[in-house]
């Protein structure tokens, strides 16, 4: 039996392929949107995983340090370390900054301050692509390679100038901004010390200038083997004035409280795009059917059964969907790394989209099938 769909596609293959490429680009954008969501989820957990703490201690009644502002005293790390089940502790300071890149562009970065001589490092050594981690208590900085700095470059932040001693790849904040690493002391100065002008002004106003730069945003801790994180967290909470989150709870805070709205937004866009793709496929198939309505009328006039015509339209729609899906994947894989934030393309997402495309294609073909079934065979001869 002659496959009418194959013959029709072969007859106008260029038009068909270009149409599939157009729809494919739309599906590629859908894949990218899903990839952006996946990237957000991963980005949100990068610092969490790199620091590798079992417990996050922050200001009481806050979801800090990522979801809410949190300020606690640095020396709490010593108190915590004295707790029975706690192995190591570290004080951390987080701050959003604007850095002028070597290209002269101001870029938003996420500064992470940690004690280079402490027990826990905020830098995952696997992310270092050049140089080293921090070794001095002042004026050293480790930057993300996305910023374009080289080892030895000087960066002015606040009152001081910092030397680039290390370059990382993939270290980002929960919002996807490139991370930079400073010593805790430098980070505290940047965050908590007033500028000279501010101090001068405050003195002129008769105010007491007493900035406390021994504050941090969070204290992280690792536990001794065999300890129960929930039990330890509950013990620390009993001290009052502190909120404590286990690593799992902090992960929940990041994925639910920090990126939930953004992910819902992306989800909405993805659903709309899939809907738009379905409508576009339906319109294309409808138009393609209208273009063939004379031939369809002839087929009906000479006696071809409806199922052959329906099969032709459905097969063409499915072929368009499959081709568009392939082009969409190629397109997504060609452009994903051009996006400023992390895009993660995962095979299960692609297969899920493939299923949706197949269902959408079958639904879309119904318009064409309806038109074909309604076609009057007399239209073939204009009578």
């Amino acid at each position: 039996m002659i496959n009418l769909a194959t013959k029709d596609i072969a007859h106008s293959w260029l038009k068909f392929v270009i149409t599939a490429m157009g729809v494919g680009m739309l599906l590629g954008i859908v894949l990218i949107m899903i990839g952006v969501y996946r990237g957000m989820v991963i980005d949100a957990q990068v610092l969490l995983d790199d620091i590798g703490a079992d417990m996050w201690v922050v200001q009481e009644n806050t979801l800090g340090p990522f979801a809410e502002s949190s300020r606690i005293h640095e020396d709490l790390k010593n108190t915590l370390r004295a707790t029975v089940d706690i192995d190591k502790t570290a004080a951390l300071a987080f701050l959003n900054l604007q850095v002028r890149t070597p290209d002269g562009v101001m870029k938003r970065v996420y500064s992470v301050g940690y004690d280079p001589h402490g027990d826990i490092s905020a830098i995952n050594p696997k992310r270092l692509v050049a140089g080293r981690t921090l070794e001095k208590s002042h004026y050293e900085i480790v930057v993300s390679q996305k910023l374009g700095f080289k080892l030895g470059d000087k960066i002015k932040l606040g009152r001081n100038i910092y030397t680039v001693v290390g370059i990382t790849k993939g270290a980002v904040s929960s919002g996807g901004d490139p991370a930079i690493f400073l010593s805790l002391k430098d980070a505290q100065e940047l965050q908590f010390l007033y500028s000279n002008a501010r101090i001068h002004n405050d003195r002129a106003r008769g105010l007491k200038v007493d900035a406390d730069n021994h504050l941090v945003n969070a204290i992280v801790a690792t536990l001794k083997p065999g300890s129960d994180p929930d039990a330890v967290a509950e013990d620390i909470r009993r001290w009052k004035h502190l909120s404590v989150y286990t690593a799992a709870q902090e992960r929940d805070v990041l994925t639910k409280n920090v990126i939930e709205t953004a992910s819902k937004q992306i989800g909405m866009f993805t659903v709309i795009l899939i809907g738009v793709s379905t409508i576009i496929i339906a319109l294309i198939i409808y138009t393609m059917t209208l273009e063939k309505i004379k031939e369809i009328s002839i087929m009906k006039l000479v006696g071809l059964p409806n199922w052959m015509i329906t099969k032709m339209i459905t097969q063409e729609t499915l072929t368009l969907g499959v081709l568009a899906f392939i082009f969409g994947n190629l397109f997504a894989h060609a452009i994903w790394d051009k996006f400023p934030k992390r895009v993660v393309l995962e095979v299960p997402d692609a297969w899920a989209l493939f299923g949706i495309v197949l269902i959408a294609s079958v639904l879309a073909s119904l318009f064409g099938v309806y038109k074909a079934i309604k076609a009057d065979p007399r239209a073939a001869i204009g009578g």
Partner: protein
Amino acid sequence: MTNEVGIKVENLTKIFGSGDSEVRVLENASLEVKKGEFAALVAPSGAGKTTLLMMLGCVTEPTSGKIWLGDELVWDEDHWSIPDTRRIRREKIGFIFQAHYLIPFLNIVENVKLIPLTNGWPDKKADKKAMELLEYFDIADKRDAMPSQLSGGQNQRAAIARALSNEPQIILADEPTAALDMQRAVNVVKMLRKIVEEQNVAIIMVTHDERLLPYCDKILSIENRKVVTTTQDAHLIV
């Protein structure tokens, strides 16, 4: 010619619309074309030639009357007496139109063998039949060409080959020569004449060209919404 019925119509009436907009195209019209008979259907424009052809082809529903195709009653007063009109069309009838109306995305041989394949013929048999017909119409070398690559005359011959591919008992031709010059028109009609004699089919050909009438055995004309039959001896002319 045999005495077997090719097409038989009794008291066929077709009314379009109703009330003030009612148009009576045919009223109690009757005709008969035997197998092996070539009939021309002539009438002024708008007299209902194509409508009659479409009713005979089981495409348009008559208002009343009876239609037989071969020995099968297909329309009985107010309903089709066959479950599937399209099956009748693809098994018993061959259509030829003014334009070739070949399917543009199928090549010539595929166009010709599409209906036999749909009727369940094995591919080899359908291919053999299609090639026989293409050879008969002298376009076998164009078997793999697309309709857009052939001349009007070659396409019309391919269309006639398609009409014959299902070995029909009846051929309905709606002005098949209208788009051709006189020489080609005569060639097409001679071809149909030959088919009538060799394959014992009944042909009704709608035409406006009186120069083609001598090739026909019968002339059916629509006058006052009835079909008037005039018989002549076409064999002497050909």
